[in-house]
Each structure stands twice: as C-alpha cells, then as structure tokens.
C-alpha cells in the first residue's frame, strides 16, 4: 500500500470513528502497515507526525474499557472541518489576486486549496509588481493566539519577567508589529502585549473558558493619551515642512491649518513623557504653545542634555 493511500485511510478512519482507537486497532483497520512491530510503531508515529504537520489535530484520549488505559487516537470532525466562508468565485479570485499582488511572507498556495483553489486562467504563481508586506517572524504566534481567541482559551506566557494569564480578545497588526490585547487575569485589568516580547512558549488552556469582552488595540500614534496623569490640554505648532504628518495621522478635528501652512494641533496629554518624545521627534519644526508648564518642561529637558562635544 502506498504511503498516500495509507495516510488517506488513516485520516478517514480517525474522522469516522466515534471513540478513540488504539494503535493496534488502527493497524488492523487500515492494513498495509509493516508486519514487524517495531517498524509498525515507527511508521505509525511518522504518519501521525505527517498528519499533524499538515494541520490535522489528532486528539489523544484513553480507549474506553481498557485497563490499564490504552492511548487512543481520534480526529474530532468539528475541529478538522473548516469554516466555509462561502466565497463566490469572483471573491475567491479577488483574494487570490491580492495575494499575488502583495507579498505576504507566510502565505502559501495550500491556504487557497482549502478555499477551493485558484480559478483557472488567472495569473497565479506569477508575482505581480505589488508591495511586500512583512508580517514579522511572530506570525506563527499570532496564529496560535487567533485560535485561542476564537476558542476562548486562556493563554499563559511570560512577559517582561512576569507570568501572565490573559483572556485574549483582540489581535492587532500595526507599525509592523503584532499585539494582543485582552483581560489580564494577573492584573485584573485590560492590557496590551507585543508579541515579539513574549518570552518562550505560550500555553493554551481549555476552550470556552471566559466571556469575551471587547478590548482596545494598541495606540501607536496618540501615545500621549496613554497614561494615568490628570489630562492636560496642550497646543502644539508643527511647521509647514512636517505638517503633512499631522494631516495624515491625526483626526481633522484635532488640527487647524494656519495661513503659513503650519498646523496647530490640540491634544489631550495623559502621558507627559510620550508627549515630549513625540514633540522632540520634530526637532525645531515643532513648538509647544500651551500650557506654559509643558513649554518649560521641554527647555528643562534640553538643559539636562550634557553637550560633551564642545561647540566652537
């Protein structure tokens, strides 16, 4: 029996069975495995690995009515089978074209096979001249978290030397990084974590472990709003040279365009450090107009910089 036939039969039997089957049971049912016990074991282990690599979840549970309990194997149909999005041919084609246009590192053709494959006659393997989008090397972890979110599993991991238990609710890809946010059981509060800072492995708990509550994504633009300080309203002028930044990144109601092309930005500061980092990023193309305390804070900061390199 060819390996392909054996693997297909193994999967069919594992899906078909209503209770976990032992290795010997499977050997008998499928046939075609080596007679020698040791080589059967080896082949069987390899087959399971192959199915798992393909993405099949094989559940291990003890075989009923065995003493001592025997390990049994089963593929739960509702876990194996996909979520059928019911894409119309032109929608699938558009998605496929998007994937050919945008270079997403991690995306292979096999994802499309599961959706019914590429429509014939379409430019498929050819890379169009589109942009590349690096999804970073934490895409696998993001995939694990996606599963955790959809199955409502608590995730345990270590982050900045603290063990966390998170009820994940939201994945965000922004500024080239993946973030996960949700209810942090350790802190009993909503928190956001950057995936590339998670130390080591994530451990997923059982499914349906919590009620999902909405969570905010990370704020990467209005960082000055992220803090616990008493809010202070500040006015900042950004010169014409860099005004485009404010026009692109801020809401229209936050900015006012002056006659000379500069923009006056009104922001609510809850995090003074982040506010200063933002303003100084413009060097002398920005000026804090109000309030006087924040203006003074900038000069105070600059005075603290030791200018070792002596000016002429």
């Amino acid at each position: 029996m060819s390996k392909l036939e054996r693997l297909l039969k193994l999967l069919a039997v594992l899906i078909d069975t209503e209770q976990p089957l032992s290795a010997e049971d499977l050997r008998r049912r499928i046939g075609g495995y080596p007679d020698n016990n040791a080589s059967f074991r080896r082949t069987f282990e390899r087959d399971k690995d192959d199915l798992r690599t393909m993405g099949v979840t094989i559940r291990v549970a003890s075989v009923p009515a065995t003493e001592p309990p025997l390990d049994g194997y089963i593929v739960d149909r509702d876990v194996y089978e996909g979520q059928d999005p019911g894409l119309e041919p032109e929608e699938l084609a558009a998605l496929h074209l998007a994937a050919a246009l945008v270079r997403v590192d991690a995306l292979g053709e096999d994802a499309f096979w599961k959706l019914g494959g590429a429509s014939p006659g379409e430019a498929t393997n050819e890379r169009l001249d589109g942009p590349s989008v690096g999804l970073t090397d934490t895409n696998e972890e993001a995939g694990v978290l996606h599963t955790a979110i959809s199955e409502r599993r608590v995730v345990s991991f270590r982050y900045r030397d603290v063990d966390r238990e998170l009820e994940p609710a939201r994945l965000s890809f922004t500024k080239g990084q993946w973030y996960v946010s949700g209810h942090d059981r350790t802190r009993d509060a909503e928190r956001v974590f950057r995936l590339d800072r998670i130390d080591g492995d994530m451990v997923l708990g059982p499914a349906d472990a919590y009620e999902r509550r909405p969570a905010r994504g990370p704020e990467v633009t209005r960082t000055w709003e992220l803090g616990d300080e008493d809010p202070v309203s500040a006015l900042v002028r950004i010169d014409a040279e860099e005004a485009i930044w404010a026009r692109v990144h801020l809401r229209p109601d936050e900015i006012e365009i002056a006659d000379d092309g500069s923009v006056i930005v009104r922001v609510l500061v809850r995090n003074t450090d982040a506010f200063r980092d933002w303003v100084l990023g413009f060097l002398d193309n920005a000026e804090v107009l109000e309030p006087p305390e924040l203006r003074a804070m900038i000069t105070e900061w600059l005075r603290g910089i030791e200018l070792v390199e002596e000016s002429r």
Partner: protein
Amino acid sequence: MSKISATDRMARLIAAIPWIVDQDGALVDEISERFDYPRDLLLQDLQDVVFYVGVPPYTPDTLIEVTIDDDMVWISYADWFSRPMRLSGSEILSLLAAGEAALAFDNQDEAGALARGLTKLRLATGSDTETVDMQFGLASENVLPVLRGAAEQQMCVDIAYYSFAQDERTERRIEPRRFFVDQGNWYVAGFCHRASSDRIFRVDRIESAETTAEAFTSATEASPDEPMFSIEEAPRASVLVPNARLYLLDGLPVDLIEHGDDAAAVTLPVSSTRWLQQLMIRVGPGVRLLSTSDETMGSGLPDAVERIMLRHSTS
C-alpha cells in the same frame, strides 16, 4: 513527472475531493489547475489510490467512489472528506493581511469583490474587525492611488516631498516602481530625476502627487527584491542610553547593546545626522555620543538643541 511528496499530494486531495463533490463533477484540467496537481499524477492518484480509500469493512458503500469519464471526474461516498480542512490561525491572518494590504494599496476593487470576500472570510473564521485589526500605514488621501496608477502606466509623477534627513521640502519628478510596507509605513522606490538616481520615499511624507505626461525614462528596472538602500552600509554610531530610555530604540535595527547598571552602550546604523540628533535629544539627560564611524555625523547636536531651546524660551 515532477516529484510531489505523498504529504503534498494528500494536502491537495483532501482539499480537492470536497470541491469535486460540491461541484457535482469537474473537469480533470480544471482540478489540475486549481490544485496545482499535474494532470497525469492526478488521474493516477484518483484511480489507483482514492478509489481504495474508505473505512472498514471496505464494502462498496464504505469506499469513496470515483468515476472518470472522458475529461470529467465525479466523486461520491466521500463522507469523511465532505468538507475541506480548517484554515490554521496563521493562514487566516496571512489571507486577511494580503487582502487588507491590497485594499489599502489599490483602490481598484470596483466591484467590491475583494472587500466582500474579506468580510465573508472574517465572519466565517471569527475574525471580525474587533478581533483582528490590521493597519498597513497611512498616506495622504489620493497619493497612494496616484503613485500606483502611474507605476502601472509607467508614467512619471511630480511629488512634493518632505525629507526629514535634509529638513527640506522639495518638488521632484519620480518614477514609482516598487512599493513596500515597513514598520507600518508605506514606501515607494524608484528613479528620482532631481537626484538622478534611485531613491526611496516615505509615502506619508508626500504632500501631493500628480501624474505627468512623461513616460519612465530610466532603463534600469530595479528588481523587486533588490534592496535600494542598505542597513549594512549605513554609518554607525555608539550612543550611551539610560536604561529607562531604552524603549526609544524599539523597532530600530540595533547592532549591539552592552548593558550596564544605569545605562547601555548601543551601536546602531544611522540614516542621517539629523536622525541621530532627534534620537539623542529624545533620549535626553544622560545621553552621550560614544563614537561614530563617520566624524561629521556627531556634530551639530549643540546647535539642534539650541534651536529647539530658542523656540521654547519664554517670549
């Protein structure tokens, strides 16, 4: 015949079988093309393998039935493979990323097929926008579509661009050839007539873009994967950064961090003098320039500090 491993053929078959069942029969050629399955190998696997797949007792009603007639294939009794396998979490995210980025990049989805497909995919996979949100960089309205359209027609574009490194706003004619997203920002790369060489522009610093009647003139077509600037070749600076301020280096390509009790010595590539200045000023009290690979790079910090100081001195 090309060698395709047993597991690769299996991945194709467990996707193709439900599709064929669903279609109520399909053309061999179409199956072959959809699932990237060489025709002869497909026919052979259907006849010699799939035909024998089933569950005990392997009576006809527990075996998959494959009928091949002329160029058509019908499959029945494939109950275990009546639905394709679930998309993995990272497959879902990659599909959404490709779709969302394409939408942001290319507003030509007139029929809305891509947007509709993405919505369906999000719904079916429990990935609504509250659960999975993706941002691929902002740009001034109309700038990206103009660049994109011009790139397609190979026409030059006039842009108004603010260069942070030079701290100046310039008007340039460019030949947009390649687009990419890095750290959440859109970039366009291509020949710049003003500089007479290839340049990279951050799209959110382009104030306006207008397609001209001039066709691309440069003969060189930068290959899409060929980087036009190189982190390796950029000059280096070593800066002392207090530990509490190290977060400012997040996302920057850093060569080396030597941690100390209060501060770390950080060596990193520097794109321009002005960029180094703003980094050091943001790091603030406790910052020190330890060394630079390019002597002129370290100069000008006192001036830069002075200029910001002047703007904020009480009037």
